């Protein structure tokens, strides 16, 4: 058959078969036992030519309500932020996206250096000493942080705040099951981790205390108190953090965090229905040799030229096999590159400005909602998200909002007892004053 991805011609085939010493391609498959041989063709859809397939899939895409056409107030871990045009142009360079893991440093310096720069930027934002080359996402990074903590402290219990993303906690429980680690949830009080309960629960079996900053409700946790609780029992202090917020917020490293993890999706990575995003993993120097995943380090060649290599590989699965503490192999390199470009474009000034705008707009939205008679549930300082209580099911209100060109917030009743009819509202720098006011009005009207 002829296909644009398959260059073999009939005469090539003939020559090659003869070089191999067989008459037909089928002979090359004779080692497959007759009983398991698949005969004929897969019963799948016939091939489509490029224009027709593009048209079909474009129609399929058009069935989805997307954030380019709707004003989105939905966050809950995935955010609609400014993505500089340059990001997609850089990651579309196929020297980057068609490369494999940089195991041959001499012809992979571009990728290696880009990752080295990514590691540096994550360290800068989080206030940590060492960051790896990326993880699958914030959720699995959090689970790996718990595993690292258990290994490091030789303890088997982790405390995780209820204000950590519910899906990250689900993932944590999955990983914990494999490792026989006990996961204990610390309840929230008024939208932040209940410090009294935390102090009661933390003990000498505790490997880690995990909180999110800003937390799932958008609120700022009291990190000094969590730090005291964790370190008081020599447990690891683990903070999951939206790195974009750290343009304006004091970094977790300043509060004594041992491990900071999260997702770099807010930096130039599209929501794409939940993945791929880009987990990051940062630690103190002390934990450098325990980090999961790949690390890029600086070195030099024989002529003294600076170069970069994958390093400290003795930690990893392809060397340690069953002694490895993590099985991660592929990571999210291309998305780490996207995040690097976005962080570079924003730069020192822009990362502050974007974070500050989020604070300002969320504040403005909160005030506008109050004015429209909508109840704000937790009266805590927040970054770019907060909780409101409606007097109708969130689903119903969101349905109405769609008609106005708005994607409404997250229905907290799905995951939190006592927060039925509560909506988690995200307001990024991309939401205009007009959109915010329309949203506030619609939510206010829904009360009538």
């Amino acid at each position, binding site marked *: 058959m002829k296909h644009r991805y398959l260059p073999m011609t009939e005469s090539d085939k003939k020559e090659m078969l003869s070089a191999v010493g067989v008459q037909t391609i089928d002979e090359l498959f004779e080692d497959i036992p007759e009983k398991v041989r698949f005969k004929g063709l897969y019963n799948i859809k016939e091939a489509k030519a490029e224009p027709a397939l593009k048209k079909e899939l474009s129609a399929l895409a058009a069935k989805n309500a997307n954030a380019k056409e709707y004003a989105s107030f939905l966050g809950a871990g995935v955010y609609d932020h400014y993505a500089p045009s340059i990001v997609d142009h850089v990651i579309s360079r196929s020297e980057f996206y068609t490369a494999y893991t940089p195991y041959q440093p001499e012809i992979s310096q571009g990728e290696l250096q880009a990752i080295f720069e990514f590691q540096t930027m994550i360290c800068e934002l989080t206030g940590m000493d060492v960051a790896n080359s990326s993880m699958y996402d914030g959720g699995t990074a959090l689970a790996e942080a718990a595993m690292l903590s258990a290994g490091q402290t030789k303890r088997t219990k982790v405390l995780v705040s209820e204000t950590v993303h519910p899906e990250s906690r689900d993932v944590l429980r999955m990983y914990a099951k494999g490792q026989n680690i006990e996961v204990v949830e610390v309840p929230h009080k008024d939208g932040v981790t209940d410090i009294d309960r935390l102090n009661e629960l933390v003990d000498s079996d505790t490997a880690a205390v995990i909180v999110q900053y800003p937390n799932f409700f958008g609120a700022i946790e009291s990190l000094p108190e969590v730090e005291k609780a964790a370190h008081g029992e020599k447990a690891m202090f683990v903070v999951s953090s939206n790195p974009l917020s750290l343009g304006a*917020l004091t970094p977790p490293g300043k509060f004594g965090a041992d491990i900071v993890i999260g997702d770099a999706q807010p930096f130039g990575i599209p929501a794409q229905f939940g993945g791929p995003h880009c987990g990051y993993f940062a630690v103190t120097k002390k934990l450098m040799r325990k980090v999961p995943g790949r690390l890029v380090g600086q070195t030099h060649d024989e002529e003294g030229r600076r170069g970069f290599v994958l390093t400290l590989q003795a930690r990893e699965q392809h060397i340690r096999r*069953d002694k490895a503490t993590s099985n991660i192999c592929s990571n999210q390199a291309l998305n780490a590159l996207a995040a690097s470009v976005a962080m570079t474009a924003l730069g020192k000034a822009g990362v502050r400005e974007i974070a500050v705008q989020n604070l300002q707009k969320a504040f403005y939205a909160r005030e506008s909602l109050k004015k429209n008679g909508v109840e704000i549930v937790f009266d805590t300082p927040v970054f770019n998200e907060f909780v409101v209580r409606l007097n109708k099911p969130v689903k119903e209100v969101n349905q109405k909002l769609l008609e106005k060109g708005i994607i409404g917030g997250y229905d907290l009743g799905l995951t939190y007892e006592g927060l039925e009819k509560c909506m988690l509202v995200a307001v990024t720098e991309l939401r205009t004053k007009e959109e915010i006011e329309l949203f506030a009005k619609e939510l206010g009207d829904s009360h009538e």
Partner: protein
Amino acid sequence: MNKKDQELIFEVSQPGRIGYSLPELDVPETDVAALLPDGYLREEAPELPEVSELDIMRHYTALSKRNHGIDSGFYPLGSCTMKYNPKINEDVARFDGFAHIHPLQQEETVQGAMELMYDLQEHLKEITGMDEVTLQPAAGAHGEWTGLMMIRAFHEANGDFNRTKVIVPDSAHGTNPASATVAGFETITVKSGEDGLVDLEDLKRVVDETTAALMLTNPNTLGLFEENILEMAEIIHGVGGKLYYDGANLNAVMSKARPGDMGFDVVHLNLHKTFTGPHGGGGPGSGPVGVKADLIPYLPKPVLVKKEGVYHFDYNRPQAIGRVKPFYGNFGINVRAYTYIRSMGPDGLKAVTEYAVLNANYMMRRLAPYFDLPFNRHCKHEFVLSGKRQKKLGVRTLDMAKRLLDFGYHPPTIYFPLNVEECIMIEPTETESKETLDAFIDAMIRIAKEAETNPEIVQEAPHTTVIGRLDETTAARKPVLRYEKELQNV
């Protein structure tokens, strides 16, 4: 840095330059300090670069020129299936309706995305011969762990708590034993025989009622089809264990043999290998898992279901192992894989495997006179050579790999699998032309001759790359893992 060095973005930075264009703040400005509790407003700004947009583009363009991708040249990296990454895939994944949809939107607003996922699952079921598929795992290793957790849940649901061991061949990918460990199992290694296949006698010796599963790649990492697969399935099933298929090498058997028909109970696929999701310099990948009927209850939740033409995420799955990843997997990669499958169709996927296997056999036969060929039989999509002969001349496989760089090639996988001395593992894929294969073969033959006549040129390679062999020992002993200005002038 010295003059010849490629600048880091931090070294390009100049105070006061910007590379962004944020919207004007159109709401009344409030005092930020008043919005945060005391001590939470960041005092020291993070040292991110200060550069213009052109600075950024020049920087990354320069970096890209120091990187080899499939589009740059041949990439015969064994076990990685470095085939062409179609451009339509990239276009489709960037459609607004796929790229800019939020995972927590109401289901009615994302029916198109769910339809694509559902249809991809249907296609993967047929391709693998399995009864159900989840798209949740983010990568191959993540899929392995997901599959093993399901096997663990299955045994435990049967009151079988003593199945603590996972058997893995000595030729297996490193992720197999690592995934077994993370899933809480002990790894037992089964030996390969002289013929490169799993030694059935050794397998019988290591299995017992504590066996949870056998993990297998078929064809294995030597590129050989495990002909005794049905006997192996019988041995494992005979003691109540499950058979796990590592789909890294699926490109070798599409339309020729399906894991489901070989007796496998669980399969993971690497959509970034066989199904052209690009490798991205190390990811993101996608690692869907397929299972036979008896394991369906344990699939991670939510499970995508279709009722009366409408798609739903079903969370009501009491026996589900839980959730392995936030949301529904690496959708963006799944879109690319789906686009590829739909571009190929049934005839295309069959041709893919046939040409991948013909290409590998052709290269193997043409190179056999110049290198040691540990397994002299038809291979599947990849094959291994041994550099033993050259090693005697003082030229190691690593040297030959580095010499290939001088000819513009990415070297094959080397020193893997572990059971072949001075191993060179070559996987050409089906998207390469005969001319490309011939040119690479010529380069390999030339290097084999150089090893005899001029070994230094090989030992000292590469000669033409932007940088020479790097001091990896120093990198590991005195790790410099981030940019710090003070550390650059040492």
